[in-house]
Each structure stands twice: as C-alpha cells, then as structure tokens.
C-alpha cells in the first residue's frame, strides 16, 4: 500500500522532499530565522509566481505550452495599475476588469490553438507578442497607482500567517477539487493523456482545450493582479521572466511537459522550491547578475531529469497507446 502510494506520487514527493530540505536550510541560515516577516516576503514572492505557474500548468496539462503567460501577467498588471487606483472605477469592478482581461487573453489563445489548428507554442508566441505590445502601449514606463488598502489586506498577514500563504492553500484545495472531482478537470487529464482516447470517450476535445487556455489566462490575470498588489505599480517589462519561470516551476513540481500528468500541489511545491532556491542564491553572496545563469541551469537540470525518465509516467503498454 505505502509502496504503491510512494510510487504513484513520486512526482510530487521528490520535489516536496527537496523543498523541505532547502527551506530548512534557508530558514536556518537566514539572520532573522522563522519570523512572520521573513515568511511573508517569501510567501508573497511565491504567490506571484504560483499564479503564473498555474496558468502554465492548465495549458501544459492538455499537452500544450503557453509562451504568453508572462505577457498576460504583464498586461493584466498594467491594466490593474490603471483601474485599481480606487478612483477611476470602484475597486471590485477594477478587479473584475483585470481578471476578465486575463481570461479573455487565454480564451483568444485557446481559440487560435483549438480552432486554428496552430501548435500552442506558435499560437501563444504570437498572442503573447500582441499582449506584451499592448501592455507597453498602455504603460510605456513603470508607474500607476494601486489602492493601498486592498494591497495591505492581500500582502500582509492574518494573525501570524501571511495572507498570501492562505491564498495559496485555498488554491491548492479548490483547484484539486476542481481537477480531480469535476468532469472538466478529469477531461483535462484525459485530453492531455491521450487526445484520441478522449475523443472516443466523448469528450469535446476542442472546447476543453479552449477552456484550459481560458482558465490559464484567468490564473495569469490573478498573477498580474497580485503583482500590482505587491509592487503597487504596473510594469510592462516583467513578461519574459514570468514565462520562463512558470515553465521551470511546473517542471520542478513534477508536471509532465508531455501532458496528462501533474497536480496543483506539485505546481505549488515546484514554485516554492524555485523561489527558495532563488532566495538562497540571493543570500549566498552570488553576484545578482549571475543569478539568471544559475536559474537557467536549474531549469535545464529539471527538464533533463524529466528526459531521463526519472519522473516519467511509465506506460506498461507503450505499444498499444500509439
């Protein structure tokens, strides 16, 4: 029983163990130890990337890839810096506008992929360029204003616990429920696992794919929104970092780039792992300009680990799954 559990959940257990070790090192070596302050900063950083990673995850789950994740985060962040000042429109309308923008961006990419029959990597490269361009047009230099009361509520703490950590936990619970218990969630796994079988099972393959992209866009919208909450500004230039890191985070979290395998918990753990590594590097005295190089190395190593089959879903009947 336990052996089976470990074998089936290897993809989450390995990154979870790695995270536990590195996080202990991080807290152990941090001058201020396990304080609410340290935890809040770490957790806010994690939440920023977690939304982008989730956006990437839903698309990768259906055997796609979304190169527009960062662009949607940037665009929604810029939109947030225009509509969340609390003066132009009521704040809740502003929030809906920001999230709606994200979902719409995902929907458009999804329509291109599903009905235009364009490979996701190309379609989202194109839509991403459009979204980035739009973001830059709307806000050529970083700036804008964001309602500070809302920001404080979402980026500080509830009691001793960082608000962002509570949000992350909520996402894991609700997201897992959606993915493992709803027809839509199971269809995402089914589609990513075998499009042909999904079609024969009666799953509407095209609309499921569109919905996956739209849901991803919504998550990226949450990402842009949260960037605005943390930084209090809009910045069109953040796109590339988010796209690359979103892929790195899900790969570290045991999500298969071949689709059909991965969990929300894994995505969050992968994000935490990546952010902890980044935080460790920050304190390790590495020159800041060398950090992207090491982040790149980590991403390459994570993908290579997948390629060598350590985390691969083994199919007993590979010959029959063609």
């Amino acid at each position: 029983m336990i052996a089976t559990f470990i074998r089936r959940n290897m993809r989450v257990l390995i990154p979870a163990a790695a995270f536990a070790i590195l996080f202990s090192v991080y807290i152990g070596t941090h001058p201020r130890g396990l304080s609410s302050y340290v935890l809040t900063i770490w957790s806010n950083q994690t939440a920023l990337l977690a939304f982008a990673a989730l956006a990437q995850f839903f698309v990768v789950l259906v055997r796609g890839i979304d190169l527009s994740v960062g662009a949607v985060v940037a665009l929604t962040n810029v939109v947030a810096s225009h509509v969340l000042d609390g003066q132009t429109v009521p704040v809740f309308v502003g929030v809906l506008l920001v999230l709606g923008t994200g979902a719409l961006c995902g929907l458009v990419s999804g329509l291109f992929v599903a009905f235009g029959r364009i490979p996701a990597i190309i379609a989202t490269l194109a839509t991403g360029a459009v979204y980035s361009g739009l973001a830059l047009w709307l806000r050529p230099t970083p700036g804008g204003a964001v309602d500070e009361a809302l920001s404080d509520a979402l980026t500080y703490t509830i009691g001793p616990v960082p608000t962002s950590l509570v949000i992350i936990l909520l996402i894991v619970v609700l997201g897992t429920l959606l993915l493992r218990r709803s027809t839509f969630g199971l269809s995402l796994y089914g589609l990513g696992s075998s499009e042909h079988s999904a079609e024969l099972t009666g799953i509407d393959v095209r609309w499921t794919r569109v919905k996956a992209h739209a849901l991803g866009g919504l998550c990226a919208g949450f990402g842009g929104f949260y960037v605005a909450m943390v930084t209090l500004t809009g910045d069109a230039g953040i796109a590339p970092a988010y796209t690359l890191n979103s892929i790195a985070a899900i790969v570290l979290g045991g999500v298969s780039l071949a689709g059909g395998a991965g969990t929300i918990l894994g995505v969050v753990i992968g994000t935490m792992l990546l952010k902890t590594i980044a935080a460790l590097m920050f304190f390790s005295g590495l020159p800041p300009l060398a950090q992207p190089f090491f982040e790149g190395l980590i991403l390459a190593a994570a993908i290579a680990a997948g390629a060598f089959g350590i985390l691969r879903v083994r199919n007993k009947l590979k010959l029959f799954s063609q």
Partner: protein
Amino acid sequence: MTSTAPLIDLAGISKTYGPVRALSDVDFSVRSGSTHAILGENGAGKSTLMKLLSGAITPTAGEIRVDGRPVHFTSTRQASERGIVCMFQELSLMPSLSVGDNIVLARPGRNFGFVPGRAYREAKTTLERIGAGAIALDTPVHELTLAERQLVEIAKALYQKPRLLILDEATSALGASAVEKVFSVIRALRDEGCCVLFISHRFHEVEALADRISVFRAGSHIRTFPAGALTRDEIVALMIGQSMEELFPPPRPPVDAAAAPTLRLQDVSFGTELSDISFSVRPGEIYGLGGLDGQGQQRVPEAIFGTLSGVTGTIEIGGRRFERRSPFKAKGRDFAVAFVPEDRKTEGMIQPLSIEDNMRLAGLGLGGGKAAAAERDRRCRALLARLELVCGGLGDPVSSLSGGNQQKVLLAKWLALAPSCLLLLDPTRGIDVKTKAQIYRLLDDLAREGVAIVLQSTDYEELVHLCDRVAVFYGGRVARELAGETLNPENLISAAMGLSRNDQTGDAA
C-alpha cells in the same frame, strides 16, 4: 425478442476516404434483443461500419435511422446519448487517469459538473459484473495489462447502459475464463433487450454468441442469415468470395534443404516480448510469422532490421554475423536486407513527398554514385509498372494514392535495392483483393529468384498458401512451427490461441 421496428437501420450507406471506398451502398439493420456477428476479411469494411454507427465518422452518402428516425451523429457522445456505445479495437482509455475516472467520464452526470460518489460505486459494480472486481478503481490505467484494459474498456461501455453495444474484437487479449464471463454478461444484456453487434475473427466465439451473422466483403454487405444456417466452409466462401486458386500463386517446389540459410536467428530475445527465437530461412523460402496480435511476431522483423535496441542473441545474414545492428547497416551491401514496415502511413513513407522522392529514400546513403541511383530508379519504375501502379504521375504526393497503391510504392522502393533478404510486416492489411493477388505473385516470383522472405501476417490464408514454413507465436515464443501437411488453418488457429495438441483449455491471460 420480437420487437417489430429495427433498432438501427442503414440505407444506402457509403463511406469513401479519398479514392478508397471503405463501404459502398450498404443496407443493413439490427434488432433489439439479439446478438449479431459481423464477419469479413481485413478491409471488408467492418470497422468502418462500427465507426459510422458509433458516430466516430460520418457517412459520405446514405442514411442512418435509429428507431425509424434519421440521425446525423457528429461525435461518439451524440451516439452514446441515443444508447449506441462502441468498444473500439484501438482502446479508448486515457492512460494517466485512474480506472474509475475513465469509466465515469464515459457518462458525465449533471451535478454542476462534479462527479458524484455514486458514479464511482456504479463503476465498481459494473467491473464486478464482468468479473473484474479485482481491478481497483484508483489504479492508473497505464499500470494495467492489456487484458485488464480490455475488461475496463468493456466496463466503460456497459456503464453507459447501451441499447446497442458494439464490440470490435473486444476479447482478443482475454483468457478463456474471462471471455466466458464476458459472454455471459453479453447474453444477459441481450435478454434484457439490448442489441449486441460484434466483430470477431474467431469462429468458435461467433458460434458461441451470435444469433445472426452478417458477412461483409470489400465494403459491401453480402448476406445476413441466422446463426447455424450455413456451415463454416460456406461462411468462409462468402467472406473470401473468390476461390483460393485465383488469389494465390501455385505452390512452389520445396527449397533445397542443403542450401546454406540466408538468414539465421539463434536465441533472439527482446525484453518481455520475445524469448529465445531461433529459426533459419533458406534462399527461395517464404517463412511465415503468425499468431494473434501482439504475441511478439511483429517484433521479429524489426529486431532483424535493427530498429529495436536491446535485442540479444545472434543474427546471421548470408553466413555473416550481423552485429551492432542498425537499419542503415542492414540495407547496406554487406547484408542487403529490406524491411517493409507495418504502417505505411507513418513508418513506410513520407506522405506529402512525391512518389518519386519516396522511391529514392530507401537508396539514400548506399553510394555507387549516379549510375547506381539511376539503376535503382529504373528497377523501381519497372516494379511499379509490373504491379500496375495507378497514379496521376510520379510527381504526385504519396498521400494522393489509395492504400493498395501506396503499398505498391512501398514494396517497389525496397525491392529496387535488390535485397537478398526481405522482411514484411502484414503487407496486405486493408488492401483490395486484386492488389493482394499482385503482391502474392510478386513475392512468389522473388522467392523463385532466390530471395529469402520473412512474412508476418494476420491473414491465415496468406500464411497457409504462400509460405513454406510458418512459426506461430504465442506469448513471445514460437509455439509451433508448421510446414507441409501440418500447415493448415486449423493448426494455425489452435497454435495461435496457445492450444497445443493435447491441451484444449489454454488460457491466454
């Protein structure tokens, strides 16, 4: 059961794929409360018929009526909502989902898009009903064996509460006791008023299960009759529609037993799929590889040609050991092996390239300069002329050809290299009778010229009439080698099913 209106009625149904007619002008109907077997050779249109009924494809012409009303299914879901459920030969399970998830997804409930717990309980009950209660609902499908997957597939079909259940070779991987259990469930379904339509290549299954039998041949519905009305021989004659003498070339004289073998395998193994295969093929001999699907026989030519890695054992070609095998080395001058793969669409040819370019692909890298290339071209054209290739021009893409004509190009491209040893994987699958006869004649001629041929086939008649010897595979081993008098359909079938001469209750599980 005596319901008056047919459950499903097909009127004038045709289905064409480009120039290929898979079904032409078929009238066919089935009634509730019956078990109806569809018989026919490969390429007779059986699978196309099943796919039409289940909504996986739409007819080019004609009308499908359910309960007397015309329907136009554009997806399998629409068909299953009308109670038409198909269990496909190519399994429709999604490997990374669990058994339970796979089953409940087949019939999604309303419940705000969430799957209720009772759906999983019902899935479990369905598995238990077909005697597969041992398969846990939370097992990911990719951990299951083929037999277990077939059972899950059957449970998935039953879970949808079908009025018409279509089974396409549904029990091919199951052992005898599991098959019997599934059959008893099918009979119970029939008695409840369901219609079960099934394709099987095993006569004893048809005899055990069918009330009515329909024979299809070359895309046409030939005849429907009550089970037991015709003998096996009469049914086979209907299925083939042509005497064996016309289809196959006359028998060749036996090859010289003293001749040195062109190809010799000694204890060749590959993972769990092949164990200790040993045989040799002499010049001019056609050596058949038979057996049920997936018993390892398909791997043998691939192992010889060097497309599999991790093959152990000795392979000798022309008396020389063939080591560190690769396709490039195999086709080279030293060994001169040609390999015609199973799937001409993906493995055999590059579809968008022209016929001419595809012809030349096999010769790439063989050297010999322009003269040799021109010689290969000349030979290829001669072969195509001899096989009567039907095409617009050699510059047309291969994808514009019918299946039979594609197969001619594929054969020609390899034979132009003048191989001493020819490996073929099911070269006549899904091909019309005329092309089949042409290919048989060509293989016969090649054998007479001294080429050693290894022919893997799913067609028993082909193995019986064309081969000098046949190795029948079962579970990755040669269950029996048949030659001369012992090479007949009965022996082939019993050996293929793992029945040795004194054991009649073999279990394939």
